């Protein structure tokens, strides 16, 4: 990017997950000059998910990496530019918003924040110390290191169940530690039954992880508590899937209002409380955290952004 001249766009999309890429397919197809910024993997969390069974149009399911790559190709077909880098701040300069990025400043008439969310840590002793040396947050990345080894997975929601099922292809046995009760969908619970019956997975509910223990070679055990009982699970590694935290920190000093957890508040038009800034997908307060809905929100945002760029005022609603 040229250092002296600040590049100008109609729309900058922050985040190349399903929400951001879908929006870019719509806007570039309508000749809205669009730049997508991505600091991690093009395709977002969809790209790091092994197999997606509930995205419409794929009767046999689709590999996350394949869906991500196809979304990118479709966006690029219409002229979307994807820049690998991070957006670190947004400032209002009237017609244009100024975005500070790791590749320099950019000016854009509208901005779509589609930054999704990142894995939460559990915050127990040993978690940080053994990070990537026995404690992991991405099964599709690191699962292969646990061929024929014992694993502990922590979490009780859809992601924890999905990732445990993925990890059974490598691990000899998995202890799934669920702090309270199971939150995963009935479909996933039913699928898990097969692995429980085959003695590949043991589910421990009401089991709170207290400490991850190891030595110079990595993790050796997980200490947990079940009511007033102290438990020890011998293991070679730990995968943590205890929820997600929104990627909205870079909006802290702006007019964009966040909810108490940090998700972005919008109205039905995906407009935030800062004019010209829209939000879609997992980072939006009230999002249903699904690829299909992220794509839908991306499409809605794109259509509303077009109206905004055409100077058609969007009614401000109370929710934002």
């Amino acid at each position, binding site marked *: 990017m040229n250092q002296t001249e600040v590049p100008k766009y109609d729309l900058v999309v922050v985040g190349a997950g399903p929400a951001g890429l879908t929006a870019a397919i719509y806007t570039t197809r309508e000749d809205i000059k669009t730049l997508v910024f991505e600091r991690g*993997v093009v395709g977002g969390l969809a790209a790091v998910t092994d197999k997606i069974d509930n995205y419409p149009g794929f009767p046999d399911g689709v590999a996350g990496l394949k869906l991500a*790559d196809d979304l990118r190709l479709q966006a690029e077909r219409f002229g979307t530019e994807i820049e690998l880098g991070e957006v670190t701040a947004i400032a209002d300069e009237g017609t244009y918003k100024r975005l500070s990025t790791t590749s320099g400043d950019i000016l854009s008439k509208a901005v779509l924040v589609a930054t999704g969310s990142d894995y939460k840590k559990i915050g127990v002793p040993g978690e940080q110390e053994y990070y990537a040396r026995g404690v992991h947050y991405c099964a599709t990345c*690191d699962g292969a290191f646990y061929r024929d080894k014992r694993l502990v997975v922590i979490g009780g929601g859809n992601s924890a169940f999905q990732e445990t099922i993925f990890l059974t292809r490598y691990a000899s046995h998995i202890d799934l530690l669920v702090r309270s009760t199971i939150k995963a969908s009935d479909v996933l619970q039913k699928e898990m039954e097969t692995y429980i019956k085959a003695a590949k997975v043991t589910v421990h509910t009401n089991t709170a992880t207290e400490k991850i223990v190891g030595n110079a070679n990595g993790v050796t055990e997980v200490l947990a508590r079940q009511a007033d009982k102290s438990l020890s699970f011998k293991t070679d590694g730990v995968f943590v899937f205890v929820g997600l935290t929104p990627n909205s920190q870079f909006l802290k000093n702006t007019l964009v209002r966040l909810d108490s957890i940090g998700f972005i508040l919008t109205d039905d038009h995906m407009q935030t409380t800062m004019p010209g800034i829209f939000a879609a997908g997992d980072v939006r307060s009230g999002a249903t955290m699904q690829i299909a809905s992220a794509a839908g929100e991306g499409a809605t945002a794109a259509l509303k952004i077009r109206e905004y760029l055409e100077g058609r005022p969007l009614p401000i609603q109370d929710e934002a």
Partner: protein
Amino acid sequence: MTKNVTIFTTNTCAYCQMVKKYLGAKGVGYEEVNLDEHPDRQAEAMRLSGTMTVPVTVVTKQDETQEVIIGYNLARLAPAVAA
């Protein structure tokens, strides 16, 4: 000057694809060691990186010094292969 680049990957690792795409776009050749196909080379990846994660990118310079980059970390990867 870069002499050669080796990337340790697995089949399902999205960050590995990003590293390969980046090197491809910069015209940097590399050898890929897919640990799903060569589990016998896992120990080597772990010894080089001190971690059990992929991608691990090993950049060997002409003077045989090595830079090991863990994960998809453009801030380290870009300068390592630039020269």
